[in-house]
């Protein structure tokens, strides 16, 4: 069983490493992720939100609904933990 797990891990790793040769170079300024959407956030953040920190302005201003959904996730996780770990009292008849 352990040999089987090792074989699966090695095959998956080999496929992923084969896939990295099409990735852009590490820390390349011209990579597609850095040229498409994010320059607008960096250039406009100061005049549109008056916040110098671009991460905060995107997190709480441009993508505020994302953060709202995140709080929903935390709430659901807390309710799940309470439901799983509560101690059930037995009713006396």
């Amino acid at each position, binding site marked *: 069983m*352990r040999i089987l*797990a*090792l074989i*699966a*891990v*090695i095959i*998956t*790793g080999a496929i*992923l*490493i084969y896939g*990295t*040769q099409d*990735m852009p*170079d*590490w*820390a*390349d*300024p011209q*990579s597609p*992720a*850095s040229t498409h*959407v*994010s*320059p607008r*956030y*960096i*250039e406009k*953040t*100061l*005049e549109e939100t008056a*916040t*110098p*920190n*671009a*991460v905060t302005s*995107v*997190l709480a201003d441009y*993508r505020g609904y*994302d*953060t709202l959904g*995140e709080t929903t*996730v*935390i709430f*659901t*996780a*807390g309710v*799940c*933990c309470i439901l*799983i*770990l509560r101690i059930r009292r037995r009713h006396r008849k």
Partner: protein
Amino acid sequence: MFDFIISKYNYWIYIVLMMIGFYGMIGKKNLIKKVIGMNIFQTAIILFFISTAAKRGGTLPIIEHGHGHEMQAIEAASYVNPLPHVLMLTAIVVMVSTLGVALAIVIAIYKRYNTLEEEEILKHKI
């Protein structure tokens, strides 16, 4: 060839980390070890996403001379990409939520079967 290794070795180490976590999830028999493997896997994926934000010659995504100066032209190439950072902030919080629920389930399993080893749990027929 040397340039190829220099530009790609980071990705290879991230994949090695991911595979260590994956082996912990499917190869280890202890339930806490499985949760540790899941944590390593998720952290490696977050590391991979953060690394796509890095730029050579870029600094932190906080605009310099933000207040009290004349508005200057902002060069996007001199700041690190902020978008993966935001997405991964959300992912870290979701990671801790799943960790909490997973550990709660582990405690519930221990209360019922009195063991953490997978094989001993599977011996019980319902």
